[in-house]
């Protein structure tokens, strides 16, 4: 098997005695958007947390650009450009929008290019420019998700993982964020891993998708294959 750009190879992950992921594997090509979908508790968040170095793995490998990531610290993942936008946004509520963004620039390279990246972000989300000196906790949910996404972008990701970005947001805001996501994947060659409960929305922007059930990858294929898959239709698309 030839190694892909980012490849997760049969990882097993446990929380204490409880195994959450079973021989899970997936890959992402450069500039590709993949979606990981599935119901609550299927292990979707665990996958991306593991791929961000926040959770250790029992066995298996995570290859990125030919190098093994498993065993490295979360900071090392970030320095290599593997970055997670966590579920629930996890902003710093009493810091300004600008400070939140600044914190995201953690690697040397990201620090050096801080100003440029901020400019780009303000172009994508003009509202954040208006709100840059406002405390992040006072923003609306949609604006907070923009900040969370942008904070991730400040770290100059090569692979950006987004955990439930649509949670609790109005549809038009989600569309806006997904539009930018698609744009950065295409224009900057950033690979995206999208974890979503909103399967329909996720499949609309993803190239390929993985359906996860109880910690096991059940179905995989291109987005259009999945959209027409009877099982997926019945279980996740509701028709």
């Amino acid at each position, binding site marked *: 098997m030839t190694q892909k750009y980012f490849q997760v190879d049969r990882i097993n992950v446990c929380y204490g005695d409880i195994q959450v992921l079973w021989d899970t594997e997936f890959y992402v090509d450069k500039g590709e958007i993949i979606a990981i979908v599935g119901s609550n508790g299927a292990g979707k968040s665990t996958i991306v947390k593991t791929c961000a170095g926040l959770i250790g793995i029992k066995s298996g490998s995570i290859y990125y650009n030919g190098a093994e990531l498993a065993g490295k610290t*979360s*900071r090392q993942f970030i320095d290599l450009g593997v970055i997670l936008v966590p579920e629930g946004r996890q902003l*710093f509520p009493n810091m300004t929008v600008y400070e939140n963004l600044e914190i995201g620039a953690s690697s040397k390279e990201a620090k050096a290019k801080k100003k440029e990246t901020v400019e780009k972000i303000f172009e994508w989300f003009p509202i954040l420019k208006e709100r840059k000196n406002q405390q992040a906790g006072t923003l609306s949910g949609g604006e907070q998700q923009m900040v969370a996404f942008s904070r991730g972008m400040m770290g100059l990701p090569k692979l950006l993982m987004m955990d439930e970005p649509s949670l609790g947001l109005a549809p038009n805001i989600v569309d806006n964020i997904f539009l930018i996501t698609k744009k950065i994947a295409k224009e900057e060659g950033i690979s995206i891993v999208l974890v979503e409960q909103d399967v329909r929305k996720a499949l609309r922007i993803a190239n390929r998708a993985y359906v996860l059930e109880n910690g096991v990858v059940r179905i995989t294929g291109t987005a259009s294959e999945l959209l027409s898959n009877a099982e997926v239709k019945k279980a996740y698309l509701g028709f």
Partner: protein
Amino acid sequence: MSTFLQAGANGLMVGGIYALIGVSLTLIFGVMKIINFCQGELLMLGMYTSFVLYDQFGLDPFLAIPIVAIFMFIFGALLQFTLITRSLKDEDDDTNVLFLTVGLGILFQNLALLYFKSDYRTASSIFSDKIVSLGVITVSLPKLVSFILLIIVTALMFLLLKYTNIGKQIRATSQNKIGAEVSGIKTKSIYAATYGLGAAIAGITGACLMSFYYVFPSVGEIYGTRSFIVVTMGGLGSVVGALVSGIVLGLMETIGAVVVGSSFKDTIVFLTFICILVVKQRLKTKRG
């Protein structure tokens, strides 16, 4: 009238010390959500460090401050890195770390007793025994210098937290640990730095105190309990709150001593503390 003014001036100086130790405690709580029961003992260690520097090298307590601060920073950071982090492993259970800090307090006190014995020790500064007169009130110079240092240290800490990289990382970690981790902040190092900073400020307080007070192994108990009152009054985690309530506490003590006699000093302090707790609770339930 002049008695009250004098008491007020003294209260301000004592309050400065309470405020500073309160600030150090609230910093540690604010970032790590650890209630550090050995804060008073860290102050005691700061005092002894200052004493040793004076005793061995004849260093003025005020000149010793930078050395004490650096030493206590390293000591605190190591303490965090080696022991406290380990007791924090189970994040839902914070009783471990509570017991640990209580135990460390007892350990430090007894080590001090073993090494320095229970004698009262003093160090004198070039400012010692000097007095400044401002109209009807007189203030001892070391107390005044300590008060000014308090303002400087607190201001520096504010600037550090507000503008420096490490300060921003400390604030970020205190506000959202997961958010900090996914942003590449090494939260363990931040915790160590914060605990070190808290220990350093406690040490600075001790070194200031050394210029007009004496050190003995259980000196930390007095200031430890005071620091808890200060932090509870000012709100856990609030630096400004600690600053204000430290000074209020100092004023209460000295002015209360004038009004009802100095033997009731502690009674006044704790009664007021209880009253504030009751009122605070009332206000909370009313609002809630």
